[in-house]
């Protein structure tokens, strides 16, 4: 009985977000596919961080046990906090990458407009 509740609840809020985005915020529906691609990239990064944390954690625990004799249970790696922090790491890294891409776009737009202004000045002078 929980599944229909989850599906209906998330379906309603998704449609509400779609309506608010298109009607109030003037988002273009065509950009949704691009946004979906970016969401998948972000999620992929989160999973890469989660896998890296799991592998590094297990190697450190098992290696630490044999090298130092200090016991840490491998069960700590199944703590849900590691999943949450991995997702935050992935999200931050994704936003960082997007910031760099945005700056690159802005600077290329700026240099294009400078070029155009220069050409216009030459034409006027000629």
């Amino acid at each position, binding site marked *: 009985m929980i599944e229909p509740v989850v599906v209906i609840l998330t379906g309603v809020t998704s449609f509400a977000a779609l309506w608010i985005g298109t009607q109030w915020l003037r988002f273009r529906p065509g950009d949704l596919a691009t946004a979906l691609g970016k969401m*998948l990239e972000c*999620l992929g990064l989160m*999973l890469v961080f989660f896998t890296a944390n799991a592998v590094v954690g297990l190697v450190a625990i098992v290696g630490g046990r044999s090298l130092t004799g200090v016991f840490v249970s*491998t069960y700590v790696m199944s703590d849900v906090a590691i999943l949450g922090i991995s997702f935050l790491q992935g999200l931050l890294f994704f936003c960082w990458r997007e910031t760099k891409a945005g700056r690159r776009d802005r600077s290329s737009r700026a240099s294009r407009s400078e070029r155009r202004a220069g050409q216009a000045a030459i034409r006027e002078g000629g």
Partner: protein
Amino acid sequence: MMRRAHPLQLIGLAGIGLFLVAAFSPLSNAVFRWSAAASDIQPADAIVVLGAAVDPDGTLSSESLVRTVRAVALYRTGRAPIIVFSGPGHEDGPSEARVRADLAGTLGVPSAAIRTETSALTTREEAVRIGGMLRAENVRRILLVTDSQHMRRAGALFSRGGFQVFPATADARSGAGTSPGARLRLLRDLLGEWMALGYYRVAGYL
């Protein structure tokens, strides 16, 4: 022309697919039931109850409590004359084995029938230390109490130690999770146990 997907997008898509299948399909339950060990209750020389977890204030985890109650029920129905409770504690709290022994005493198990092992930190250490303790008492046949996923690894370790092992499974979670969250927890437990099983095989413990 279709744009090629970024590798991260494919990883993300796989993650969403796995999440949806694990949370909203009966797959986790089916795999849990498929890989669960079955109980085989026979008369034995001792009941061995493997550790799970205890909080520093002495509160037993659900897993620990379920195993303890299962062992007491086996004892009270005359399956074996001795119970061994395993489980260390935190620095500033009682050991899990001690808390379980006290609970068993409250439930009518005489203290003369109870043994405790409070220093073993892993399943392998439990098999070695409890094995040594029981061999000194000429115990050969044991009823092993742990959860149905852990049983394969734990049973193999005690069998290697020369014991005839009869599984007595005690699960805090059933293989019939009815909510997406319950099915995701089942899958997490399964993956954890499979990784441990793989590690024990690679390390040559099994």
